[in-house]
């Protein structure tokens, strides 16, 4: 066997962003042993991410497609766009966790190193052109996030979160591997492009085993993006994990899950679109329904946002169900917007946490507008955006996915989405009502820091700017996906 052609040093250039992230993670891990000030490590983490952004931007324009390692690792606009989401996600997470981890007495250097490793895993998932590489990235992401969820070692809830996440994650990995092995058994390859060709040339698109394989893959990805009925872990894990990690998990792994769901379903099983759409339709309706309705009953804001994140997965799924490139564009567009509004909302939740004050109950938001008008106003923006009220970006995101559902002829899905949007308005706007129409029970002291201000400024500006000028983002998504 000749290894000469496939393995040359020039070929690893498309991996520069991933290598940068891994190196940053390793350096942070070693620095943690000698550096006492953990803030320095966090700053270094942000610098490493910025270098990786530069690598992604510099080496590969959005419309260039390449694949390396015997076609196992693809670098295209689709992967690059998701990588941008992951970079911003990790930078915002680091920004909002500076002070918070100190208050939780879990300020350790491993935290930042693990964030880097988890992000690398997501980047590998976004770029995976082979099911085995996809699995590799997924496990790197998942193992890092299990540990991150259990980082507050002294707290029972955090331990429970980590253990629950680990068991259900391992379970979903088994589903993924089963799906991959069935696909391999039928087609003899794990390469996503080759699978597509073989499904049509062997005409096995109607094969029952092939359908089973697709179902297993959807179940596995459904776990990661918390689709109902695979969402059971989400509320407990989101509540128990450190809040900054909850913010990280509700965006990063979800976006990575959608990245692989989109790539596998559209590229490998594009011929079976009618089949997988018909599976995703009931999942999407259930996800929107359960997410929106159970969130009504929550009194803990982290649990409420967990169910809200479940519901949002249902909306994002609408674009994928449509099965068209425009549908995929609307989903990716929604994910980007969702990241900004969700991160912003979690930033406010973290600000309420101070020494000796949990600040996780909805009651704690009573009268926030009187004591801290600025924070209340920002929370108002994020809650409006999560509900989908113009002129915030959340409206644009929902508008496009629902429009794609209508274009694809799924009128009933569009109506369902709107109905559950209205239901979700109740629990989002309840927070606003508590803040503006109730009197404060006790004076809430906000934990402020410059990095937190930066994160809030960025998310607020993006939510408002993307709400007013939606074409900026939409054109970027379009140009990167159609290439």
């Amino acid at each position, binding site marked *: 066997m000749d*290894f000469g052609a496939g*393995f*040359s040093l020039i070929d690893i250039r498309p991996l520069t962003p991933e290598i940068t992230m891994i190196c940053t993670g390793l350096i942070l891990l070693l620095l943690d042993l000698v550096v006492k000030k953990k803030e320095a490590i966090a700053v270094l983490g942000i610098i490493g991410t910025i270098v990786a952004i530069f690598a992604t931007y510099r080496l590969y324009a959005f419309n260039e497609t390449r694949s390396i390692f015997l076609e196992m690792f693809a670098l295209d606009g689709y992967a690059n766009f998701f990588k941008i989401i992951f970079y911003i996600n990790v930078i915002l997470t680091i920004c909002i966790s500076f002070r918070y981890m100190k208050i939780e007495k879990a300020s350790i250097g491993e935290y930042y190193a693990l964030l880097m490793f988890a992000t690398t895993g997501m980047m590998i998932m976004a770029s995976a052109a082979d099911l085995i590489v996809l699995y590799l990235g997924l496990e790197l992401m998942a193992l890092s996030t299990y540990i991150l969820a259990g980082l507050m070692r002294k707290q029972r809830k955090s331990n429970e979160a980590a253990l629950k996440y680990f068991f259900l994650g391992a379970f979903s990995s088994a589903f993924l591997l089963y799906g991959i092995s069935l696909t391999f058994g039928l087609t003899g390859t794990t390469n996503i492009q080759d699978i597509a060709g073989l499904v049509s040339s062997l005409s096995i698109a109607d094969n029952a*085993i092939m359908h089973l394989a697709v179902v297993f893959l959807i179940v596995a990805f459904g776990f990661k993006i918390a689709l109902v009925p695979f969402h059971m872990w989400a509320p407990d894990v989101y509540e128990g994990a450190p809040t900054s990690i909850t913010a990280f998990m509700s965006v990063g792994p979800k976006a990575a899950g959608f990245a692989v769901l989109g790539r596998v379903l559209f590229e490998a099983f594009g011929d079976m679109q009618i089949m997988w759409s018909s599976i995703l339709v009931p999942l999407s309706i259930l996800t929107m329904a359960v997410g929106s309705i159970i969130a009504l009953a929550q009194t803990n804001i982290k649990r409420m946002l967990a169910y809200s994140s479940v519901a949002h997965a249902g909306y994002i799924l609408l674009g994928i169900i449509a099965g068209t490139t425009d549908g995929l564009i609307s989903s990716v567009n929604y994910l980007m917007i969702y990241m900004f509004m969700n991160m912003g909302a979690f930033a406010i939740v973290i600000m309420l946490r101070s020494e000796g004050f949990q600040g996780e109950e909805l009651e704690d938001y009573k009268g926030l507008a009187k004591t801290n008008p600025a924070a209340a106003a920002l929370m108002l923006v994020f809650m409006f955006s999560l509900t989908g009220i113009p002129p915030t970006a959340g409206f644009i995101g929902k508008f496009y996915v629902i429009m794609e559902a209508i274009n694809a002829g799924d009128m009933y899905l569009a109506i369902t989405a709107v109905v559950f949007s209205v239901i979700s308005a109740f629990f989002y706007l309840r927070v606003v009502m508590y803040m503006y129409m109730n009197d404060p029970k006790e004076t809430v002291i906000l934990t402020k820091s410059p990095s937190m201000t930066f994160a809030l400024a960025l998310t607020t500006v993006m939510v408002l700017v993307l709400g007013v000028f939606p074409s900026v983002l939409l054109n970027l998504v379009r140009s990167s996906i159609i290439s």
Partner: protein
Amino acid sequence: MPGSYIPTDYFPVAIVILIATLIGLGTLLLGLVVRPRRPYTQKLSPYESGNPPVGEPRTEFSVKFYIIAMLFVVFDVEAVFLYPWAVAYDKLGMFGFVEMMLFIFILLVGYVYVWKKGAFNWE
């Protein structure tokens, strides 16, 4: 070659599984039916190489063993990867060498980390 795999190729495997199951279950069932059953205290006691058993076999042991075992797995896997690399070394050449050194270096970082964290200290 991709595409040459069809499920019927695996039919012999299914037959082997079936026969294996039959042999396994069959001998157990046969023994159950044929053997005489005369239990008494000495016969029911656990086998301890002829010595009378002392205490419960399930006792608590230190969690430290678990950390050592976990670390062992990591470096064991490293050793397992070294074997095929060493066998194919002449074909892989310089690139393979650099690649393997990188792999060992990454594990070395982990080694330094667990060492400094005191995972190897028994006390």
